[in-house]
C-alpha cells in the first residue's frame, strides 16, 4: 500500500511503541535472571551467571518441566483427534446444529479458566469420584485446546476442494483410503501448526491446572507459582523463565517454517492465506 511520508512515519512509531511495550518487561526479566542479589532492586547491584546452573540442577523444576511436557503432549493428542473429527463433520457435511459446533468448541477457551477449572474439578471429585491427578489436568487442557486444532483444520478443509476426495472415491478408494491418502496429507501442516499452538497453550496454563492437579504433582507454571514468593528461589525462577523463553524460540521457529513452506506451495494456489491462518491464535 502507498503511504504518505507522514503516515509511514506515524505507522513506524506505532509499531515501535507496540514492540517496546512487548519487549521491555521481557528484557527486565532477563536482566533479573543475572542479578547477583536475590532482592529485586533496580538497577541490580551486580551481575552473575550463578542462577542458570542452579536452575538446571533444580530437581523440582526439572520434574515440573517434564510433567508439563507430558500434559502438553497428551492434551494436544486428544485435541488433535477430537478437533479433526469435529472439523471434518462441519466442513464436509450438512446437519442440524452445525452452526452451534463452532460455538461449542470455542466456549472452553472463552469462559474464564477459573470457571472451567472449578466446574471440572467439582465434577471429577464430587460427581465421578475421580481423584485429581495429571490425568484430570490433561482432560482439562484438552478441552480448551480442541478449538485451536478445529479452527486450523476447518479453515484448511474449506480451502481444499472436495473434488480431490471425490476423485479418490471415483477411482475406487474407500472412505479410509481417501482419508489416509488424500485428506490427511492436505491437513498435515494445518495440524502441525495447530498442534504447536495447542501445546503452547497447555504448557503455560496455570488456572485450570491449579484446580485439576493432584496433590503430589506440579507442572512448570505451578512450580513457578509456588516459588514466586520465596525470596531464595526467585532468582532461580527468573533463570528458569529465561531458559523456557529460549527453548520456546525453537517451536516458534518450527511453526513459522511449517507455515512458510506451505505458504510457498499455496502461493500458486492463490494467496498467502495459509500463513495467516496458521498463526491465528489462540
Amino acid at each position, binding site marked *: 500500500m502507498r503511504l504518505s511520508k507522514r503516515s509511514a512515519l506515524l505507522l513506524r512509531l506505532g509499531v515501535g511503541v507496540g514492540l517496546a511495550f512487548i519487549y521491555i*518487561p521481557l528484557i527486565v526479566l532477563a536482566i533479573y535472571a543475572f542479578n547477583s542479589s536475590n532482592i529485586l532492586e533496580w538497577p541490580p547491584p551486580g551481575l552473575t551467571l550463578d542462577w542458570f546452573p542452579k536452575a538446571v540442577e533444580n530437581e523440582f523444576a526439572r520434574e515440573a518441566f517434564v510433567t508439563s511436557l507430558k500434559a502438553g503432549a497428551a492434551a494436544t493428542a486428544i485435541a488433535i483427534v477430537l478437533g479433526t473429527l469435529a472439523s471434518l463433520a462441519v466442513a464436509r457435511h450438512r446437519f442440524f446444529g452445525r452452526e452451534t459446533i463452532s460455538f461449542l468448541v470455542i466456549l472452553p477457551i*472463552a469462559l474464564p479458566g477459573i470457571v472451567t477449572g472449578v466446574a471440572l474439578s467439582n465434577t471429577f471429585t464430587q460427581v465421578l469420584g475421580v481423584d485429581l491427578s495429571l490425568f484430570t489436568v490433561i482432560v482439562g487442557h484438552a478441552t480448551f485446546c480442541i478449538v485451536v486444532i478445529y479452527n486450523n483444520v476447518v479453515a484448511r478443509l474449506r480451502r481444499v476442494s472436495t473434488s480431490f476426495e471425490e476423485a479418490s472415491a471415483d477411482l475406487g478408494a474407500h472412505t479410509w483410503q481417501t482419508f489416509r491418502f488424500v485428506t490427511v496429507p492436505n491437513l498435515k501442516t494445518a495440524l502441525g501448526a495447530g498442534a504447536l499452538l495447542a501445546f503452547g497453550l497447555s504448557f503455560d496454563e496455570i488456572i485450570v491446572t491449579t484446580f485439576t492437579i493432584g496433590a503430589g504433582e506440579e507442572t512448570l507454571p505451578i512450580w513457578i507459582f509456588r516459588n514466586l514468593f520465596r525470596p531464595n528461589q526467585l532468582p532461580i525462577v527468573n533463570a528458569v523463565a529465561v531458559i523456557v523463553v529460549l527453548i520456546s524460540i525453537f517451536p516458534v521457529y518450527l511453526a513459522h517454517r511449517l507455515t512458510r513452506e506451505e505458504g510457498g506451495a499455496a502461493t500458486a494456489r492463490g494467496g498467502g492465506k495459509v500463513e*495467516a491462518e496458521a498463526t491465528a491464535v489462540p
Partner: protein
Amino acid sequence: MATEAVVERRSVGHRLAGLFHGRPRLQVGALLAGPVGWLVIGYLGSLAVLLIAGFWTVDPLSGEVVQGFSLENFETLVNEPVYRDIVGRTVLIAALVTVTDALLAFPIAFYMAKVASRRGKAILVVAVLVPLWSSYLVKALSWRTMLSSGGVIDWALNPLGLSGPGYGQTAVWLVMSYLWLPYMILPIFAGLERIPDSLISASEDLGASPFTTFRRVILPLAFPAVVAGSIFTFALTLGDYITPRLVSNDQFIGNVIFNNISNNLPLASALALVPIVVMVAYLMVARKLGAFEHI
C-alpha cells in the same frame, strides 16, 4: 504372519468403510460422537453441575452446604453493592484492556501484513509469538517488580519529576493489556493478510486518500478480526485472578470466586454464572459480526 495381519486389518477396514458408504448421517454421527460427547456431556455437564450448586446454600452455623433450591446467592449478588461494584469494575477493565490492545495491535498487525518486506514480516511474526510462549506468571511478576516503588518505571520516570502508577487498578489495566496483546495482534494480522492488495490499489486508483482507503476499505474488512481478537482480551481479563493479586489489592470477579471456593462453594458457583452469561452474550454478538471465521 505379518501379511495375514495386514490382510485381516484391511478387510475390517473395508467392511467398516462399506458400512459408512452412502450413509451420510452415520458418517456425521461417527465424526461427532467423540467431540460432541466430550464437550456437551463432559464440559457443559460440568458447568451445569456447578451452576446447580449456585442454588444451594451454606448453613451459617455449621458451615455445611445445604443442597436445596434457594435464590439466596443470586439475591446477595444483586443486592449487595460490593458485588455490583466488583462486577462493574471487572467488566470495565476488560473493556478498557480490549480497547487498549486493539489500538496497540492494529499498527503492528497492519505493518506486518501490508507494509513489511517478506523478511521483516517473518521476523515480526516470531517477535510477536515469542512472548506468547514465555510464562504468563513470570511476565506478570516482571511487571510486579517494574511497578514496585523504586522499580524500573519509577527509575525511568523520576528524572522527569514523575512517578509510576504503583500497584492498583491502573497497574491491572497495564499488565492485562500487556499480557493479552499478542492474542489481539495475531487475528488482526491474519485478517489483514486476507484483504487482497488489489482492493487497496483499486481504492487508491479511484482517488481515495490513504486515510479514506483505511476508513472505507481496510477497517470494515478487518473489523471481524478485531472482534475475534477482542474475544480473547475480554475473556482472559474477565476471569483472571492472579494478575490482580500480583499488582493490586482490588477485588475482581475471579478473585471473589477464588476466595469463596473453599468456604462457600454455592456463592462461588452463583458468581461463576456472571462471566458465563457475559461471555455467552459476547460470543453471540461476535458471531453475528463474523468474528468466528477469524479465530
